[in-house]
């Protein structure tokens, strides 16, 4: 599903370049539940942005669903994102003036789904994350955990191949963290590839495979011994 070979990425800081990713090799198959662990500055968010086509890499090869990602223009990237990828961000990134339902339906709008149909689908997914009753609330009327569940529903609504979650529990307390992780596990159990970035051991422990990143290189890549299933 995701295949990365010798990936490099640097960022300019003033006149200097900071080499963030120094040759990453990673292969994630369909249906995996992978977490990337690392302290801040290890390059994990950069990796997710590249995998999510939100940023471009400098060197190396990246295959998404068998397709080589190279010289993508913004339009193609947008279409691929819409088709294959669902995002969950640490800061939720919901549009503040849209209701939960409208936020979830937004990717379908850009996919060209009719209004009636996309509202139905969006409602199904809100139901799935347990927020059907909150469909017409604005993000600022929801708790952090609820916002993140709306964001997860939005990530799922286009039936992507991969869900990319960047510190999905970073802004949540432990109880809501568990409920969000349970939700991600459910999704994975239904066959979805889930790719989580975190610096919390408890979060990583709930995934099936942990990749540890340090200073831009992978230092370990192992399956968790007893992945909990619910």
């Amino acid at each position, binding site marked *: 599903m995701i295949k990365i070979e010798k990936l490099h990425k640097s960022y300019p800081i003033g006149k200097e370049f900071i080499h963030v990713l120094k040759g990453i090799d990673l292969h994630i198959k369909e249906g995996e539940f992978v977490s990337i662990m690392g302290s801040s500055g290890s390059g994990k968010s950069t990796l997710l942005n590249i995998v999510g086509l939100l940023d471009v890499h400098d060197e190396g090869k990246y295959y998404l669903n068998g397709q080589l990602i190279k010289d993508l223009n*913004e339009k193609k990237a*947008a279409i691929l994102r819409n088709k294959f990828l669902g995002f969950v961000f640490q800061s939720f990134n919901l549009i503040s003036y849209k209701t939960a339902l409208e936020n979830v339906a937004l990717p379908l709008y850009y996919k060209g789904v009719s209004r009636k149909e996309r509202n139905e689908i969006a409602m199904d997914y809100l139901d799935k994350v347990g927020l059907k009753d909150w469909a017409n609330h604005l993000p600022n009327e929801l708790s952090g955990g609820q916002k993140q569940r709306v964001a997860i529903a939005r990530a799922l609504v286009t039936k992507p191949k991969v869900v990319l979650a960047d510190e999905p529990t970073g802004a949540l307390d432990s109880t809501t963290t568990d409920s969000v992780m349970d939700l991600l596990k459910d999704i994975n159990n239904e066959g979805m590839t889930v790719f989580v970035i975190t610096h919390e051991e408890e979060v990583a422990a709930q995934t099936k495979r942990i990749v540890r990143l340090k200073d831009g290189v992978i230092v370990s890549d192992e399956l968790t011994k007893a992945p909990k299933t619910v």
Partner: protein
Amino acid sequence: MFDIDRWREIFQSISKNKLRSILSGFTVAFAILLFTLLFGIGNGLQNTFKKEFAGDAINAIYIWSSFTTVAYKGNQIGKKIQFKNDDFKFLKENFSKEIQTISPRIQRIVEVVHKSKKDTYTLRGIYPEYQIQESAEVEEGRFLNLRDIYQKSKVVVIGRLVEDDLFGQLSAVGKQLKIGGIMYQVIGVFSDPGGDNDERFIYTPFTTMQRLYGNTDHLDEFGITYNPNLSIDEAIVFGNKMLRTLKEKHDVSQEDQRAIGLFNNASGNREVTNMMIGLGILIFIIGFGTLIAGVVGISNIMVYVVNERTKELGIRKAVGATPKDIVAMILQEAIFITTISGYFGLILGVGILKVVGPSLKEYFILNPSVSTPVVIGATVTLIIAGVIAGYLPAKRAARIKPVVALSAD
């Protein structure tokens, strides 16, 4: 292309971000309002000028005769110079190219009686062309025509105020008037932009008057309009040439300033024309300046709007919006807001001019108004400016990497 979904997105974005929408709308509405008001007032000033000088045709020349003040070719000082019908013919033949219309004129002060009402007016015997020279407009009935001239009919066309004085609310057309003891039929009523004096004249065929008053071929004056293709300088030269030729014909010294008089509107026109041009330039600068201010305003607002929305645009891109989607959304919103608020400013401006306009008369502002094409042109200019002003930042925003946009606050 009409895309109901995109319109929904736009309406939501506008109504949920009221302050932003009102700010950008206000800029445009205010610019158009100012433009309409200033332009309208400028036009009002111009109207005043036009009216002040529109009493007679703008290209009119009048020639009259008097007594000589210089002895010349055996003529003594104090000899009355008398124009006759052959002078009429002479001018018509010699200046056929330069003359647009020419009419001789005889004028008498007469007592006019209708039933119990009686008053004194100026009776003028003229040719139909005289109507053009006075800029008279027929309000009712008809003006004199050539048939009246040939038949020497006893008919009159009376000024609007003559009708008011003698007939009150009733129509004078078809009624009989006793003028200087002779019955005339009223065939028409005219109005004249020249004002009250000009609307108290009574016109009758030149030939009728010549026969009834003295039965000679004498006449008092000539009214002429010069060919409008002549430039002002050419028109002044033409007037001087006529004067010189007439003086020669009547054995009047060229030095004699009194024996034959000539008034040429062209000389006054030069000043008026210059003033109008100056005023026009002023109005143009005012209008242009207001528009520029509006364009700058809407551009600033658009830059601000796009900046403020960077994060939202990043989210939209992350969930699959293409750069084209982003640009189109911002532009459509900009066009919508500028059009609606531009229209609002226009209506408000025109309304204010309508309400306040009449009370500005004493400040030399007459009928302040703007022509629809001018205002629509201004609005379209602002819309285009809004589009360009919105397009550049929108394009930039659409190009920002989503990851950068998402991290914006």
